[in-house]
């Protein structure tokens, strides 16, 4: 089974405020508020860490969930975020220069 790599789209604006991660599309100004799982994917999407490692080290640690199910859900969620151009997905590692920083500022 091939691995999936995630990277933050550098063309979106992101901000964490009081634990809520908000993302705005630079293309059409749509505002997204990420849930906890989507926030984990966003924060971990460095282009180098494969999705299965994110699931093992972040999602399965935070939520009591079976690994296979967690991986399936995480991939589905990652593809949804990619459809909104929040994340980039590739079967190869994604160069760091094309990824955004995790988040700026918080209150």
């Amino acid at each position, binding site marked *: 089974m091939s691995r999936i790599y995630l990277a933050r789209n550098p*063309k*979106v*604006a992101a*901000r964490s*405020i*009081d634990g*809520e991660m*908000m993302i*705005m*599309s*630079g*293309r059409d*100004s749509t*505002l997204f*508020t990420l849930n906890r799982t989507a926030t984990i994917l966003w924060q971990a999407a460095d282009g180098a860490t494969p999705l299965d490692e994110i699931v093992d080290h972040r999602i399965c640690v935070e939520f009591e969930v079976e690994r296979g199910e967690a991986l399936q859900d995480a991939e589905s969620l990652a593809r949804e975020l990619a459809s909104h151009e929040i994340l980039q997905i590739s079967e190869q590692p994604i160069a760091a220069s094309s990824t955004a920083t995790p988040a*700026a*500022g918080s*209150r």
Partner: protein
Amino acid sequence: MPELTTEVERLSLVIEIGGMPVRVNTTDPGFVTMLQDRYAGYVLEANASEPGNAEIEFDVDLVVPTGGPDEDVRVTRSPDCWTVTRGDFHAEWSPSTRRGRIRQSANPYSIDAVLRIAHTLVLARQGGFLMHSASAIRNGRAFLFSGVSGAGKTTISRLAPPDATLLTDEISYVRKRGDGYVAYGTPFTGELAKIGENVSAPLATLYLLAKGPENRIDEVAPGEAARSVLANMLFFAEDEELVQATFHSAFEFASRVPVRRLTFVPDVRVWEMIR
């Protein structure tokens, strides 16, 4: 040999909103008079501001428009040119030379739209913005009252006591200054059709308006505060860089200015809570 050309006198005036002067040049005296009436209180003598001091200088060509004001406005940027179009006008200017041109008929509404958009684009780079909200100064501090149509912007403006100075009943003008923000009066009016006073004051609170059975002020969670600021900011450009700047400006604002929900009964007692 008869003269084939005659020199046409160029007339100028400066419309200064939010402390930002915009020079308008035209050859039509009637249009100048129209603008002086429309922007009363915000017009400087053209001599009072040197041409190079204007944030933007527009030459206005009065033409017959190809469409109407009901068409969607489009704001785009090429490397060194902002272009703003709507059925009733076409405007463009260069951010580097700060000069541009507006083609419209002799009416105050088209240039009003251009000015709102131009100010929005300039402010976006400075951490400021225009916001759908009424605003007023009381006891030396400014208060913003934001909400969707029908939330009460006009009502709260109409109920303002004599010691409150109305800045606008529709579009507030906010600039960043130091660690805080300043609200300015604007000539942009809503239902009240009353031009705001051309004064400013440090911004104390943004109230999110809601009409209800009692007067009360409630805390707003930080996330909701930021979303509300974003939802009420005016923004037009299809430009990723400015979208990002505007997004971060909203969060900066929400982290520095108290945002509260103001539920109110539409009578004058609500102003007892706004001091």
